[in-house]
């Protein structure tokens, strides 16, 4: 959905009239609402000086948290990229009873509070959980392990790939695929040369959105990770723990990196969308 909104704003841009008042009004609203809070992170980081910033960032704990967050985000983007695209394909191509209900369910994680996701994972896998009460005595439990963090992130970010790919598939004429078959294309060739090029944009922006959301996930992670430095502490958890402990510089250095990363990610997404619209 975000994708469609963004492409719409890009393609429908009018021949800029000089609207000083509306632009000024927008800035006046956006300044305290969005821009100043974001700027505060970087202003604070700058105030502690480059040395302070670098040393806060290079602490082993912060380094681990950043790397762990990136690793989880990559894995989430890859797994949910494949799962989400496959789900979109099935939901878009096949008609079966319960399809509408399934369509709602797979999109639900966008609306469920992430804390609820964490709770429900614990109630499934934890020692008192539905599966956990059998598995935990056997020594099997993903909770408080990196696998648990990954499970939480897969749940929370599931709809993003789906949302980016399914609209494209819905609009794609089946005839193209069929035409490919009539000229003797194999199933793989039809996928490789008809479906995949059409989906490229959706796949890319879906993966990027999944990655970005995973990088910033907090609510579900805080419950299932155990928050252990060098084991399961992600960057957002590190920020929270350090901030609560009063180590604001340490928290802010990592926060600045996350903010910059998400800025770059969304800039890449916008550029990419601009390009696909032009083409």
């Amino acid at each position: 959905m975000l994708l469609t909104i963004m492409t719409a704003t890009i393609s429908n841009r009018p021949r800029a009239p000089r609207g000083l008042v509306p632009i000024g009004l927008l800035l006046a609203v956006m300044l305290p609402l969005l821009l100043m809070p974001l700027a505060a992170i970087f202003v604070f980081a700058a105030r502690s000086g480059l040395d302070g910033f670098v040393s806060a960032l290079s602490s082993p704990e912060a380094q681990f948290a950043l790397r762990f967050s990136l690793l989880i985000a990559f894995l989430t983007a890859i797994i949910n990229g494949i799962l989400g695209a496959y789900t979109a394909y099935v939901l878009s191509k096949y008609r079966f009873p319960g399809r509408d209900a399934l369509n709602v369910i797979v999109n639900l994680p966008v609306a469920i509070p992430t804390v609820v996701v964490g709770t429900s994972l614990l109630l499934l896998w934890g020692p008192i959980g539905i599966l956990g009460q059998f598995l935990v005595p056997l020594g099997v439990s993903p909770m408080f392990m990196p696998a648990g963090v990954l499970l939480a992130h897969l749940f929370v970010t599931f709809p993003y790939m789906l949302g980016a790919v399914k609209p494209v598939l819905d609009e794609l004429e089946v005839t193209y695929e069929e035409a490919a078959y009539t000229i003797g294309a194999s199933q793989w060739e039809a996928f490789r040369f008809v479906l995949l090029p059409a989906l490229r944009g959706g796949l890319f922006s879906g993966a990027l959105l999944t990655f970005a959301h995973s990088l910033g996930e907090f609510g579900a992670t805080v419950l299932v990770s155990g928050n252990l430095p060098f084991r399961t502490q992600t960057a957002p958890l590190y920020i929270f723990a350090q901030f609560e402990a009063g180590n604001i510089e340490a928290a802010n250095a990592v926060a600045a990196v996350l903010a910059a990363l998400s800025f770059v990610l969304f800039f890449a997404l916008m550029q990419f969308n601009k390009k696909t619209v032009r083409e």
Partner: protein
Amino acid sequence: MTSNESFSQFHWSRLLGRAVVILIVGALVFYAVEPWLPWNARARPRTIVVYGFSILGDVMNKGIFPAFQKEWQARTGQDVTLIASFAGSGTITNQIILGVPAQVGILSTELDAQRLVDARVLPFPTWRNLPHNGTVNLTPFIILTRAGNPKQLRDFADLTRPGVGVVHADPRTSGGALWGILAEYGSAQQLGSSDADAEKQLAGVWKNVVAQASSARGARTQFENGFGDALVTYEQEALYDITRKKFNGELVYPRSTIESEHTVVVIDRNIAPDERALVNGFVEFLWSAPAQKIFVEYGFRSVDDAVNGDALTAIEKPFRVADLGGWAAVKKNIIDEIWKQKIISQNTNP
């Protein structure tokens, strides 16, 4: 394949751009994966996992852990790493019950340790077999005010005055908050008030609570960020900042207050047989003279009076939880029946 050539015309600049993007993404992937690569997984030193209540962060990470590493290295020649997570005592207890890999827990209250027995994490109160019944250190509860004490807050009774904003940790997740409640209630009793007046004092303080954090350390950060006029917390929080010359506020000693006792628990189910000697070594170390001295350097009071020295401020009428009848009685009579049922349920404040 021939169709591909006409589709995307061969542009060097485009190829270069693509190469840069691939290089950046590749570097990012490598950065993320590097710690997990096989050549980094080689023989990591043995590890002890500690979960501790919130204010222990600095004393453990900067004081106790390095000292134990040195001692263990000298004694056995082995390297050992310690990793630790710190949060409100109640939060940590819940996490241990749900299965975090904690081998040693340091809890703010024995009440939380008892919850581990109730949840069958511990077979019986095993901590009572440790030195000092499992109590590793102490610290009295005090009032922290803004520099110069502009509202002239001298005792818990002053915190009931209208217009005074009190920052307090949340008793549902913080052990420090429970100690705070006992201090606010028990001090009135110790100074000769009736039970009804003690209850009135507790209610008065809680009417003035303007902010709650999930841990004592979190409440401290809220206070530092400008909430409220007073913070009820561990003396350690203030003493540690005074020794670091980072203190900016006023430390107020009530005439009567509680001395909190912090309980060490050993979580046997998370300790493999070959790790037992190491974990036991660490737990014994906590009560050794060097470790107790480190606790005092970081603002705690030692269980060993000889280590404390004379520098600490004497409190006129100190008391312990045993003086109020022990944790079981206190939980039922003060926390549940008074604070939970009479005060917090009728209080419209957060």
